[in-house]
């Protein structure tokens, strides 16, 4: 829809009004009963819902829901490459786009992709490309579009898992499915699996004194052939804590494998 | 351990063996004498005052009888028939390969001017045309000889000799073509245990010495990916660093200069030669 930029003079940047209210943020991630904000234990992931074939016009599609985090993914292709420069003679090209719907997060998202979106798309691409048999699709390209409908933490793992599911649904040859999981590290031995937004790491929520060993780790796994396809961390972590978190993530991603398999099989039975 | 230094502590050595008098820069008047003939790297202004000969590149003035040329110090390769070149396959086309040879334009290797597996006298069939990529793919290095220089400056190459063909394991150093000394032989089996091709176009290919007898069977297109043993590899790495050093200091490269550098480097570890 064309807009009149001259008459609708919206401010360049706007802020969430909640930021200026006096909301007391909970200081701890666990309450007195060792429960998290949404009533889970520390090592308990959220229930996951996966479904294939949700977009009828795409070659393949998938939907992933982790309680309030909702992600939809569609795959188009393999098809001809439009741009001459990207042409590869012996290998197909995978293109990924991860986009947040403008209303998905607490703050309003712009339509134009920002630096974070570009990075997320790149992370997604590198996480799923080891799983796709690209040499079976010479001279062609496969497009993967992920749209985040609602963001309540752990968007990246949901995006990776649903993207691999959509690729399977599209009948693309793959070495393995990709499952991913993330944890929030808060202190020496506290790994919160599958964090929600309020549990996610952000610099603003930290005090200088408790900065060490606060962060997030994400791992994407090819569960059957046991290869790590993506690994991501942020925050100030000791290497032993980081490695512990990686192990936790890997384990949790491994657990997802059976769920993913089940949802693929059930989509074919329909 | 990691070393970090200030650039100001870098030692500065200058090559003072080149006297400035022979060097000209673009626009310099070489001669005002009209007797001379205009060669490469020079120009004269038509109808200007006198028929002054100007230089159009920075380089050394060369005079052959009445012909004056200026040879640029930094230049691209201008091939002559019979030159040995090493090049990288850039594109596979209809019945020919395009080869990057540090020349002005990409060189061409025709399918008809290579030895295909199965002997020299084999007929080329349509399947050969389809399988061109199996013989030479994009990125592969070849050694070849200049067969013909076309009028537009494109070089036609051929590999119809057992000396030439696809290059197997080894490493390639690219230097300025002007640093390679023209000699009768450019392919050397160095006594230190490795072979070196100092190609006319400035590509230097260093590879382990292997018996050549197994080459004729497959035309040199089958390449073993077996690992090279450590000692041989060390020699190759040392040679590579020596060639890089010599080129950095603008020393003319030929088998003896490379060998001298190699012997001089022996007391040092390979990694510190650079």
């Amino acid at each position, binding site marked *: 829809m064309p807009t009149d930029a001259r008459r609708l003079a919206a401010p360049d940047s706007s802020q969430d009004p909640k*930021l200026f209210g006096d909301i007391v943020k909970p200081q701890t991630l666990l309450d007195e009963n060792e429960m998290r904000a949404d009533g889970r234990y520390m090592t308990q992931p959220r229930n996951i819902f996966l479904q294939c074939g949700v977009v009828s016009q795409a070659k393949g599609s998938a939907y992933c829901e982790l309680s309030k985090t909702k992600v939809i993914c569609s795959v188009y292709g393999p098809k001809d490459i439009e741009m001459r420069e990207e042409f590869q003679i012996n290998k197909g090209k995978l293109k990924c786009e991860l986009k947040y719907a403008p209303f998905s997060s607490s703050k309003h998202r712009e339509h134009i992709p920002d*630096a974070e979106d570009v*990075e997320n798309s*790149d*992370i997604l691409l*590198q996480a799923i*490309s*080891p799983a796709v048999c690209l040499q079976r699709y010479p001279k062609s390209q496969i497009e993967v579009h992920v749209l985040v409908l609602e963001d309540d933490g752990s968007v990246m793992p949901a995006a990776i898992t649903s993207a691999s599911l959509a690729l399977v649904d599209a009948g693309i040859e793959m070495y393995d499915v990709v499952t991913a999981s993330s944890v929030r590290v808060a202190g020496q031995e506290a790994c919160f699996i599958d964090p929600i937004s309020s549990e996610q790491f952000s*610099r*603003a929520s*930290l*005090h*200088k004194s408790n*900065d*060490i060993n*606060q*962060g997030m780790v994400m791992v994407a796994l090819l569960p059957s052939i*046991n*290869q*790590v*396809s993506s*690994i991501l*961390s*942020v*925050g*100030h*972590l*000791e*290497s032993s804590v980081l*490695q512990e978190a*990686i192990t936790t993530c*890997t384990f949790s991603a491994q657990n997802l494998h059976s769920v993913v398999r089940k949802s693929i099989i059930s989509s074919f039975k329909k | 351990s*990691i*070393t*970090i*230094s*200030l*650039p100001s502590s870098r030692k500065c050595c200058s090559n003072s063996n080149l006297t400035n008098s022979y060097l000209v820069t673009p626009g310099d008047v070489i001669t005002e004498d009209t007797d001379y003939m205009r060669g490469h790297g020079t120009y004269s202004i038509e109808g200007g005052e006198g028929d002054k000969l100007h230089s159009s590149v920075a380089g050394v003035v060369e005079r052959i009888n009445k012909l004056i040329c200026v040879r640029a110090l930094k230049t691209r390769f201008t091939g002559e028939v019979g030159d040995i070149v090493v090049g*990288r396959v850039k594109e596979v086309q209809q019945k020919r390969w395009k080869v990057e040879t540090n020349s002005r334009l990409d060189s061409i290797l025709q399918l008809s001017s290579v030895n295909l597996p199965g002997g020299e006298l084999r007929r080329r069939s349509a399947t050969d045309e389809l399988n061109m990529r199996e013989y030479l*793919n*994009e*990125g*592969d*290095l070849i050694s070849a000889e200049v067969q013909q220089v076309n009028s537009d400056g494109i070089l036609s190459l051929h590999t119809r000799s057992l000396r030439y063909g696809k*290059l197997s*394991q*080894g*490493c390639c150093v690219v230097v300025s073509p002007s640093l390679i000394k023209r000699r009768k032989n450019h392919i050397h089996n160095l006594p230190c245990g490795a072979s070196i091709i100092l190609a006319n176009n400035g590509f230097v290919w260093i590879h382990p010495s292997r018996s050549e007898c197994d080459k004729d069977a497959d035309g040199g297109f089958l*390449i073993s*990916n077996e*690992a*090279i043993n*450590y000692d041989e*590899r*060390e020699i190759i*790495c040392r040679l*590579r660093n020596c060639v890089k050093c010599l080129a950095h200091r603008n020393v003319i490269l030929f088998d003896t200069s490379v060998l001298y550098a190699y012997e001089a480097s022996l007391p040092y570890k*390979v*990694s510190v030669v*650079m």
Partner: protein
Amino acid sequence: MAKVILGDSEKWFIIHGIQDDLRNDGRSCDDYRHIEVETGVISNTHGSSRLRLGNTEVMVGVKVELGTPDPHSPNDGLIHFHVDCSPNADPSFQGRGGEELSSNISCILTRIFNNKTAIDLSTLGIIPHKQCWVVHVDVLILECGGNLFDAVSVAVKASLHNTGIPNIQVTDGDEGTQEISLPDDPNDVKFINTNNCPLLVTISKAGSRHIVDATADEESCCNASLVVGVTRRGRTMGMRKMGEGSLDPESIPEMIETGKNIGRQLHIALDKLLKVEQGMANDIEKVGYL
């Protein structure tokens, strides 16, 4: 990215060399090339540096300006990274060609500085909710010879170390407003504390071994690498897998450990150099871009 094209057999030669712990330039797997760093090379900046690592050449300029703080952290200053790949380095960077590489580098820099300790941003706050220092770190890539991430991070640390922020005075004005006054002396500055500033170490996987400080040739043989931000104490600050390949779970701890050790050595060497340079103060002649 500026891609080097290599034939298959050359790649095998490089990979076998890595397996034998003898790389093409004679280094072993965890050897680093020699680095040259110089700070204070650009007069119009508050801090700058120039770095050369093998064929890689990077220039960093830091500018500090006044701005409004992020409402999420009203007391803190801001730091922004921007990377530009000059077409000088490779003609393919012309136009939008270098965008992918530069956004990759700036994102990973943002990632490793995204915590409280790397740079203490509270020292950059001036008036909560109203005014703060915004530090713009602009990286210019002049030549790519492999291992860009590490080179950029070293140059960024050196330039931040060199950055002086004017000491400003905040005085209470009329009706609860506050006024800012700049010092008259341009040398009246405080330096940014870079003690906890992380450096990036890229560990590239080739065959069954991993290498640090890969050259452009070697980078084209490795299809997966781990980029880790490491502090002087050997802690990690952000990490990311790069490349299209996958990693063996067993090899990840080793790679992190290598990154940690190399990162520490890199910090020690850089700190030593920066100290030496500071001690020499004005006695040395700047080489500048050469």
